[in-house]
């Protein structure tokens, strides 16, 4: 066994499923046992006996901490690892045969000998266990007496292995005899190691069996290697995949990273793990208001939900209510058929198999027959593809795929953009539920974070003039710039619109100086009753996109503020206010 080919290695590993973790633990334990750099091992004299080669729990944990370069905050990790080494039988406590635990104090521990390591001796059989138990029952009761569960095990084994029992007893006798000839210290060490080994492999009831594995894998590593080599089907599909993937379009890694970052930034305020949800997280406070208001069947959506719709068409369509509102909008615009077609295709994809045929026919009839009331407008190439698909003997879930894709990008470029700029959308946003009150909104710390993490496309994107150009790139990088889009558009809108754009990405927090104020905002009548007007401050940073890339950030408190005049009397009332 000097040099092993990878295959042979795999074969060796077939029987050792968790080899990776054992190897890593064993490397650590070997390093620990180095005389110079390892854990300081000494001999200690207690009142009557002399205990050899032991180390203390605190030394061990200290060593692990240093070796793994753990910071003070991560100290608990060293303790955890020490306990695991004990659970897996690499070290064991001296004197305590019951508990497998490591305490960070002067308590003493010993190394298990490699012969007993799980990688060497993973699955000891009942025969060896029986010999061990018989051995102990033959010896000094006080020192080696069996525990209750061990006695029970011994009885069970005696019936199970009755045909071999004589052999087991002889073996045990021989081993006891040999042990008697050994030196006292060696004997004690051997006994302790053996006992620790069985403590791990045959733990008392209720204790963790660390070495237990899940069900065996179906394919062993050697089989996988063989399959890869010899299986022609796999080879063909691999080749097919390789040929195709040579030509696929990839984006630069930096671009991909940027997209992931932008998404995370955009959703930062919607992520309850990062921004405490309003009014409160139901798991922390037991107040289920958050569940209630975010249900998809409530009458009025929350402001968060409505804002999310503006992130991307995807975000809008993944929310049933978003779909509903979008549909209403399109019905008003008399361009409902595109959306209806898209929805029908989506339903077709995930419908019962038995319905596929009927659905395909129905869609073709309703949307693709020339002259029908809700005919959709697709290009000739696409129509041809669908026609070809329809000729196939079996109707397919994906018959209309190309047409559906085309309609989707059409909606994305056109109707969706109009929807999020429409009066209907703005009304929805204005009417939306704004849970929580003043205190929560201005919770300490969140302002600062907001300032730093405003979702912001690169400055250069601001320069891109055409809306369509944005969308072109968005088909590759969906989601990424939709807020950027909005803002850009909003710059050209009357100032009342700006408020929405600001709040849409700088969290709901900032618009609310009083809990109901924002809900009372009237978008239609900014000039109304100027005497009663209140001033609402909105930090300006979210309307400028540059500062994220600036090395020094503008401090929020000193940032220029944009004052918006807000009339206090309005025709818009939050739903929970009732009639007051």
């Amino acid at each position, binding site marked *: 066994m000097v040099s092993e080919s990878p295959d042979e290695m795999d074969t060796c590993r077939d029987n050792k499923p968790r080899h*990776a973790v054992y190897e890593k633990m064993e490397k650590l334990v070997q390093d620990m046992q180095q005389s110079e750099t390892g854990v300081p091992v000494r001999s200690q004299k207690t009142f009557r006996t002399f205990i050899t080669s032991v180390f203390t729990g605190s030394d061990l944990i200290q060593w692990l901490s240093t070796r793994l370069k753990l910071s003070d905050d*991560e100290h608990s990790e060293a303790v*955890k690892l020490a306990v695991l080494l004990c659970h897996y039988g690499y070290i064991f406590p001296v004197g305590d045969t019951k508990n497998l635990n490591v305490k960070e104090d002067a308590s003493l521990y010993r190394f298990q000998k490699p012969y007993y390591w799980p990688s060497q001796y993973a699955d000891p059989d009942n025969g060896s266990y029986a010999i061990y138990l018989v051995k102990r029952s033959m010896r000094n009761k006080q020192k080696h007496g069996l525990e209750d569960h061990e006695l029970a095990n011994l009885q069970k084994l005696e019936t199970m292995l009755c045909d071999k029992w004589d052999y087991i007893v002889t073996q045990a006798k021989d081993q006891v005899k040999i042990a008697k000839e050994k030196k006292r210290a060696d004997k004690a060490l051997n006994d302790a190691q053996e006992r620790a080994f069985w403590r791990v492999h045959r733990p008392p009831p209720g204790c963790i069996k660390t070495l237990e594995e899940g069900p065996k*894998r179906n*394919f062993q590593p050697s089989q996988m290697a063989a399959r890869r080599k010899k299986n022609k089907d796999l080879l063909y599909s691999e080749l097919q*995949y390789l040929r195709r*993937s040579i030509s696929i379009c990839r984006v630069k890694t930096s671009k991909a990273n940027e997209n992931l970052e932008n998404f995370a930034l955009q*959703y930062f305020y919607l*992520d309850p793990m990062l921004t405490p949800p309003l009014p409160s997280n139901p798991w922390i406070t037991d107040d289920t208001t958050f569940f209630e208001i975010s249900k998809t069947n409530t009458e009025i959506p929350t402001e968060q939900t409505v804002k999310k719709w503006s992130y991307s068409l995807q975000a809008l369509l993944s929310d049933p209510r978003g779909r509903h509102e979008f549909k209403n909008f399109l019905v008003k615009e008399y361009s409902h058929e595109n959306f209806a077609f898209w929805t029908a295709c989506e339903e077709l994809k995930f419908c019962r198999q038995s319905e596929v045929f009927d659905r395909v026919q129905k869609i073709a009839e309703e949307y693709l027959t020339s002259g029908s009331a809700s005919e959709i407008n697709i290009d000739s190439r696409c129509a041809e593809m669908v026609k070809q698909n329809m000729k196939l003997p079996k109707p397919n879930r994906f018959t209309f795929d190309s047409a559906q*894709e085309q309609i989707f990008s059409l909606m994305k470029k056109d109707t969706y953009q109009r929807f999020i700029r429409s009066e209907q959308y703005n009304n929805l946003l204005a009417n939306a539920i704004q849970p929580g009150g003043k205190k929560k909104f201005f919770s300490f710390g969140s302002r600062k974070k907001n300032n730093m993490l405003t979702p912001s496309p690169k400055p250069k994107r601001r320069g891109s003039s055409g809306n369509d150009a944005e969308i072109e790139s968005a088909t590759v990088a969906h989601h990424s710039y939709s807020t950027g889009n909005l803002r850009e558009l909003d710059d050209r809108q009357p100032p009342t619109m700006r408020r929405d754009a600001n709040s849409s990405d700088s969290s709901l927090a900032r618009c609310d100086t009083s809990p109901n104020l924002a809900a009372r905002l009237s978008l239609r009548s900014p000039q109304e009753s100027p005497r009663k007007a209140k001033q609402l401050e909105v930090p300006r940073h979210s309307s400028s996109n540059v500062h994220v890339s600036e090395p020094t950030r503008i401090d929020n408190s000193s940032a220029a503020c944009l004052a918006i005049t807000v009339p206090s009397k309005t025709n818009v009332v939050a739903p929970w206010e009732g009639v007051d």
Partner: protein
Amino acid sequence: MATEALRAENPESIEALSREAESLKNRLAEEKAKLNDVDSCVIGQRLESLQNFNIKPRRTLKGHQGKVLCMDWSSDKRHIVSSSQDGKMLIWDAHTTNKEHAITMPTTWVMACSYGPSGSVVACGGLDNKCTLYPVNMDEDPATKKKAVATHTSYLSCCSFTSSDHQILTGSGDSTCALWDVESAQLIQSFHGHAGDVMSIDLSPTETGNIFVSGGCDKVAMVWDMRTGDCVQVFDGHESDINSVKFYPSGDAFATGSDDATCRLFDLRADREVNCYKKDSIIFGCNAVDFSMSGRVLFGGYNDYTVNVWDALKGTRITILYCHDNRVSCLGVAPDGTSLCTGSWDYTLRVWA
């Protein structure tokens, strides 16, 4: 196809094909290298680090008599289905910690369970090689209306409904994934390509995605086109079994958790690994991964009884969650992102927020 069949009879073909595959692989590596303009450690540098991230255990779900192996959230954001080694599947109202249903399976090691999008059906399976659906209503015993939908030639390791209750996608130890029609229990599409056991699948969160990702014991993650059954992308890099795969919420990337004690992030459009989550002190394998709602936080459940919480973009560890007394076998973030549920071999589930 006919020509391929002829070539298959050629005794030299395997070698020839292997050679071709080899040269294509090299070319592919070159192509990828051209676009690799930044180091993976650069990712997330412009982001502020997450401060005050603090979640605590809020609920403990006790009731399983065996190791908890799998869990899934209901779309109502408060119900959970969990399955265990002793063949039990429990349905919880996690918020009140009440058990609402208990279903006994005719098998042990129920390794997969999943809630239907409507919340009125659950699917599960394990060493019985089957995926069985149970309707969940308050008034009836689910077991009387059960329906076996999928059958594999080895254990069922994972299952997931598509966007409707009418289709279910399964992954199995027989190295395949398959899409099934629930009503007729017919196979719609099978997915061949893994060389070893499939351990985990995840459907793309984008509506028009039509793709899913799978990870297996052959150490690779594969992205599949559900329409054609073709593997469209393969991602390697792990040194041991991949136990868990999960899409980034935007659908542009996915994370993996592996027995090699690392988690990784693979980007679909860059077609490569963009981040790796590891530490010297983490030596035990990772069984389950999931993202917070924004994708910023990645949770990994490990065999060392802990959950490591990673900043998915910066690649740094935010914190460790200690609470279980045995391996963390499964975890999932609630659909509304408010909480994290972890399941463990210590027979319990916990909800964190």
